[in-house]
């Protein structure tokens, strides 16, 4: 089966103010099948977000290319929905208007906009908050809106860059379950960047471990827990074993970073 997303020899080098070059990403080869849920796990500053931004079309590779359904990615587009770590809801729009943003941009009919936004508002559990402004919502609710906004566009892929990184632990766990539940029912292709090992294992079918900067994919580990997953699997021996394995992998990389 041909992969939906293929990343071929993608590297990224940033040029600083004095012409100083920093290699953020060594050439990466990576593929994601349709409907797969893949997490990219790595220490902070390893270039995993850079890779996601390149897939999103918000950054460009120094070498190599990214193909989505056989088409080279030239820039950002509605076929790849993105949820960022920072809160990026439009503060002047209500929850419902934020979710309709992409639909309006593609001039969908009012009725269709309404139907889709209501469907996704219900899906992320925000009924009753349609007319609230982002600043009136908690961080978790803002990210739920952001997920709904990305999904309402019906993208081929969902790209998430540490979307729950700024949330408190309890909220984060609930958000993971929410997102996983959505994936289990909608089966979108998901690429999820995180530095949280539990998060990476709990949601993914496959975890790609990134090395310290300059980043590359060090190992890929399959996660075979059946779906739908229940949060209790986090205490199962298999989960623990995977966690121990990934902890070792990440620890080696984090130490490499701190020795720099």
């Amino acid at each position, binding site marked *: 089966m041909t992969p939906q997303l293929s990343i071929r020899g993608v590297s990224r080098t940033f040029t600083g103010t004095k012409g100083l070059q920093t290699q953020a990403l060594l050439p990466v080869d990576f593929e994601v099948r349709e409907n797969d849920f893949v997490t990219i796990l790595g220490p902070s500053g390893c270039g995993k977000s850079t890779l996601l931004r390149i897939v999103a079309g918000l950054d460009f590779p120094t070498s190599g290319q990214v193909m989505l359904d056989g088409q080279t990615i030239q820039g950002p587009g509605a076929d790849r929905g993105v949820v960022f770590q920072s809160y990026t809801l439009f503060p002047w729009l209500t929850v419902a208007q934020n979710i309709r943003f992409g639909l309006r941009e593609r001039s969908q009919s009012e009725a269709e906009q309404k139907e889709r936004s209501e469907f996704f508002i219900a899906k992320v559990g925000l009924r009753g908050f349609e007319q609230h*402004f982002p600043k009136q919502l908690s961080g978790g609710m803002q990210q739920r809106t952001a997920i709904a906004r990305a999904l309402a566009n019906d993208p081929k892929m969902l790209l998430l860059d540490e979307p729950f990184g700024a949330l408190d632990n309890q909220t984060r766990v609930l958000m993971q379950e929410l997102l996983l539940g959505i994936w289990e029912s909608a089966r979108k292709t998901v690429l999820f960047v995180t530095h949280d090992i539990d998060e990476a294992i709990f949601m993914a079918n496959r975890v790609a471990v990134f090395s310290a900067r300059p980043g590359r994919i060090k190992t890929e580990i399959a996660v075979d827990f059946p779906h739908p997953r229940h949060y209790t699997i986090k205490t199962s021996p298999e989960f623990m074993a995977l966690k121990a394995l990934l902890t070792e992998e990440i620890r080696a990389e984090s130490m490499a970073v701190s020795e720099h």
Partner: protein
Amino acid sequence: MKSTPSLLPPAMQRRRPVFAPLEPVSPRARWMLGVGFFVLFVMVWAAFTLSGYISPTFLASPVTMVREGWLLFTQYNFHEDIGMTVWRVFGGFAMAAIVAVPLGIAMGAYKPVEAFLEPFVSFCRYLPASAFIPLLILWAGLGEAQKLLVIFIGSVFQIILMVAVIVGGARRDLVEAAYTLGASSQGIVKRVLIPGAAPGIAETLRLVLGWAWTYVIVAELIGSSSGIGHMITDSQALLNTGQIIFGIIVIGVIGLISDLAFKVLNRRLFAWSTL
């Protein structure tokens, strides 16, 4: 309006010192303090003038000022002067805003436009509007066009630059989010840059309107046959300091009212920005 809660724990609030840093005042106390200074100001003024310490030739007393003000309205049709001045300010200011806001948005959004216009506009911003008055009289005569142009020149460059800075300072993460939602570059300008900058632009207009009041009086001091500035020049010739002061106070009051109206309007229109 909701009041800010006290920073101190409830047990300490009874004994809190009035001058604790950042300690809020009640709306009632705020109002009384604000009015209090006006009262104090008038009292000092009255003390110096009514006691004869300062000659009435140089400074009229508050009583004379009020009497002269009454005369202005009843005998000299001062309301027509006020109407004239207000129309000039808003006319010139509206013209400036209509030209400057779109230009400022274009400069903030599109960097080549900014590179093309910014140096020239920055240069013009430092040209004093009042220094153009002799030239404008030459070009536009002594009529209304000249008055409006002084205000236009005084406001337009300021608004352009301030709007450009506000639009250019748009949150990059919101722009990126809009792109990933499929926004075109036109959509970015219309649906991200402009709504995001709108409260800042409105605030800029409020500020510049205040400056426009300064320009209008200068424009009216020279070669004018109506307006508050014209009345002030006339009164100077007659050494009527009471009328001069009354004129200045009227300008202050109108400025205060228009500023307040602007503030209320901005808060209404952009409720989201003050949440």
